[in-house]
């Protein structure tokens, strides 16, 4: 459970800067026995998580690096975990679409974007029958996947095919993010920054969506590099080598300070740091688009190239319902369950978070909690 405790939040910020994931030990995150969330109303069901992944946004929250932008659209205390495969009371295995749209919030009529299926653009995420929360896992009313029980609206449920393992199914939610991002990229040549879980899945989704595209990617670690190639990147280089790769691949001219004359049509930033955004701005072609897929925070970056080269910076948040169908197929076809590198019981949450925070360096990709053997799971 993650509570609003400013002093601990400050400690988490310090610890997180010293050691990635360090906020888990000293911050507001704690393992507690709490009452299960109540069903908010008709159409809501109980979900017993089987596996629940640890996402980059979870790590940012735990290490106190996420933006204050989220303050009005989360509600404390909340139970983290939005990458969830779980069981309904009737035994149906489901993946949860964690975005809390108008329908889930009981808002009628639904807002314009929700009416058109763009649940990730919902204009009422702070309103309705639920406490504020942009997704399950950040909302007090719903609970989250890092627990033995949460609640979800029936509109949020995606049945899991019998042939798909839990290990594969837990990758569907992040893959849906990737599929959504890939659906927005319309370029023949794409540079993708970052080969963490989201980066790797976006490579896979891009390759599926655009078989002819020339995909250039960065990877920090050898395992990431191998996976990026396996999943469809044409060329993978170290982060510091991407500028030169883009120059060479696009035949751009290069100025003395390393600035490119041209660049790639689309850059997909799956990191969201000041460095990655700055790099994206350096390598995007005039008139090109940067897709911000990884969650950025408060960053300082020189936007002059954005202006001078008429580059578009486009956010890419979450997904729509249909992206889960695309994701399920991708996970199954590409055996993406193999990206789940390790699971932990809840009692070892500090180890799990430390592992997730340094997954790349440790040769891992996705880390998740395994709730299937939790004693409380069958006693609620």
């Amino acid at each position, binding site marked *: 459970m993650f509570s609003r405790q400013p002093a601990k939040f400050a400690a988490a910020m310090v610890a997180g800067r010293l050691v990635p994931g360090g906020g888990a030990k000293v911050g507001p995150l704690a393992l507690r026995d709490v009452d299960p969330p109540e069903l908010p109303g008709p159409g809501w069901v109980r979900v017993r998580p089987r596996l629940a992944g640890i996402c980059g946004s979870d790590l940012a929250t735990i290490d106190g690096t996420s933006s204050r932008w989220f303050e009005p659209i989360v509600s404390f205390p909340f139970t983290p975990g939005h990458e969830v495969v779980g069981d309904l009371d009737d035994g149906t295995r489901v993946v949860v679409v964690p975005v809390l749209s108008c329908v889930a919030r009981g808002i009628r009529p639904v807002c314009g974007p929700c009416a058109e299926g763009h649940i990730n653009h919902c204009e009422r995420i702070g309103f309705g029958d639920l406490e504020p929360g942009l997704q399950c896992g950040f909302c007090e009313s719903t609970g989250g996947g890092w627990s033995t029980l949460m609640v979800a609206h029936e509109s949020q449920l995606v049945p899991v095919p019998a042939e798909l393992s839990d290990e594969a199914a837990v990758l569907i939610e992040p893959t849906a993010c990737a599929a959504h991002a890939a659906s927005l990229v319309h370029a023949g040549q794409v540079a993708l920054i970052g080969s963490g879980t989201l980066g790797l899945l976006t490579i896979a989704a891009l390759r599926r969506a655009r078989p002819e595209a020339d995909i250039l990617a960065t990877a920090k670690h050898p395992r990431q590099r191998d996976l990026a190639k396996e999943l469809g990147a044409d*060329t*993978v*280089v*170290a982060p510091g*080598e991407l500028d*030169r*790769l883009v*120059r*060479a*691949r696009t*035949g*751009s*001219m*290069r100025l003395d300070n390393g600035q490119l004359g041209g660049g790639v049509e689309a850059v997909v930033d799956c990191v969201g740091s000041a460095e990655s955004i700055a790099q994206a701005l350096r390598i995007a072609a005039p008139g090109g688009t940067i897709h911000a897929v990884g969650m950025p925070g408060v960053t300082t970056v020189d936007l002059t190239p954005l202006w001078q080269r008429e580059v578009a910076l486009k956010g890419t948040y979450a997904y729509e319902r249909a992206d889960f169908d695309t994701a399920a197929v991708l996970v199954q076809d590409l055996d993406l369950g193999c990206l789940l590198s390790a699971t932990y019981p809840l009692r070892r949450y500090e180890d799990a978070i430390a592992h997730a925070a340094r997954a790349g360096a440790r040769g891992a990709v996705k880390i998740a909690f395994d709730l299937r053997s939790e004693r409380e799971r069958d006693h609620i």
Partner: protein
Amino acid sequence: MPRPGFVLDVDRSTPPILFHHGESLKLERLPAGRSRVLYPAEPLEPLDDPDAAIRHALENPLGDSAPLRALLTPGMKLTIAFDDISLPLPPMRRPDVRQRVIEAVLDVVAAAGVDDVHLIAALALHRRMTEAELRHAVGDRVYDAFAPQGLLYNHDAEDPDNLAFIGATPHGEEVEINKRAAESDLIVYVNINLVSMDGGWKSTATGLASYRSLRHHHNVKTMRASRSFMDRHQSELHSSNWRMGEVLKDSGIKVFQIETTLNNDTFGTSGPMSVLQKREWEWTARDRATFIGMKAGLDRLPMKARRKIFNSWLAPYGITSVQAGEVDAVHEVTTDNVFKQQLVTIDGQTDILTMGLPYICPYNVSSIMNPILVMCLGLGYFFNMYRGEPLVREGGVLIMSHPTPWEFHPVHHPSYIDFFEQVLAETTDPIEIESRYEKQYAEDEWYRHLYRTSHAYHGVHPFYMWYWGSHALAHLGKVIIVGGEPRSVRRLGFTPASTLNDALEMASDVVGRHATITHLHNPPIVMADVT
């Protein structure tokens, strides 16, 4: 009388052997009873009066050629082409032999009343020479007389307005060379034949050519069929150049070839560097102290300072011969003269070939020996210093000593950086590299711009470096670099080792525990005549 080169069988009394190690030096003890060392000959006696020898050569040409003066007529168009910064290595003390020859040629030219003269540095796809480098090569007098008028310049293989397509060989090899040279009534080509690979028709057909032409022999197939580059009659690289030479001749282009040879007095007979060309068991106490002091000093200096020291070294080579006239006739004599200095007979191949790579190769004069050049020097040049069979047997192991830093000269070698980061990260297979990547690099506008306006090697040049070693890559069972930066060595596809003993241990996995070892004691340059 200088002593010839020879082969030393290593026994227990053999002292540690000198290994060059980039901008440093090492002494290594080779296993007794199964090791041998191939030593170069001592420097041949230089010509007493090189200027007189040059004048004599111009007046007494070899083969089917009239003396130079007889080939000159007022109003004619004359181009003097000369070898670029890649020769000799290290650069020689002033006056450079090119200066001597060009000054002598210009004396004859002036006497004949020829005033339409251009001088062109025949650099093919190498970097443009700087003013200082040109001055060093041709001398201040020649430079000041021609360069300010734009009559002395670097060849530009990417200038579409100054290239002339001459024709194609029966093999379909396109011949395209410098237009000024092609349209001249006579080309005088001034060579420094540092090794037997240099000179002949390779001078004009390569030095003054374009990428369109060069790609016909600078490719994996040709390089692998050149066994070795140093043995002209067994080298497909040279066969291709000679075919191109026929096309040049048939088109009416006239070449008056001047070839010169140097002795291997690389480090001198006095001063601290002289110890590097003495045989170790003949080192005096003073030599040993000099070596220890030099090594200790070098190892304490930052790399930049070490490079500065080595790059400032100018070799005191002596000129051993000058030949002029018809290309083939000249080249035959020149090659014999090179062999007199460098060729050493050795009995049979070895399982393991060791070599200490120095700080310099043809493509990093005043620059950085980057990892691709390490590969090229070891597998391209040193490996190919043979006649007959390679010194190391097929499936054998090559052990090179070099620090191999992940470091590149950003001005001289921009495409090398990309090649190393992007191409070698994908594959080290020369054939795949050639088919997948060469065209992109060769036609890259930025590289082209840097080659033409800055001092960068052509975009395709790192590919040629890799192809240069392709015969060795196919031949060897393993390549180990002692003391190399591990990540650079691995990127090259080789194996890093901390010490020579570790390397020999690793090699034993490939060639067994009692493998024979041969050390190529180079530089000064030595070439193996493997019988």
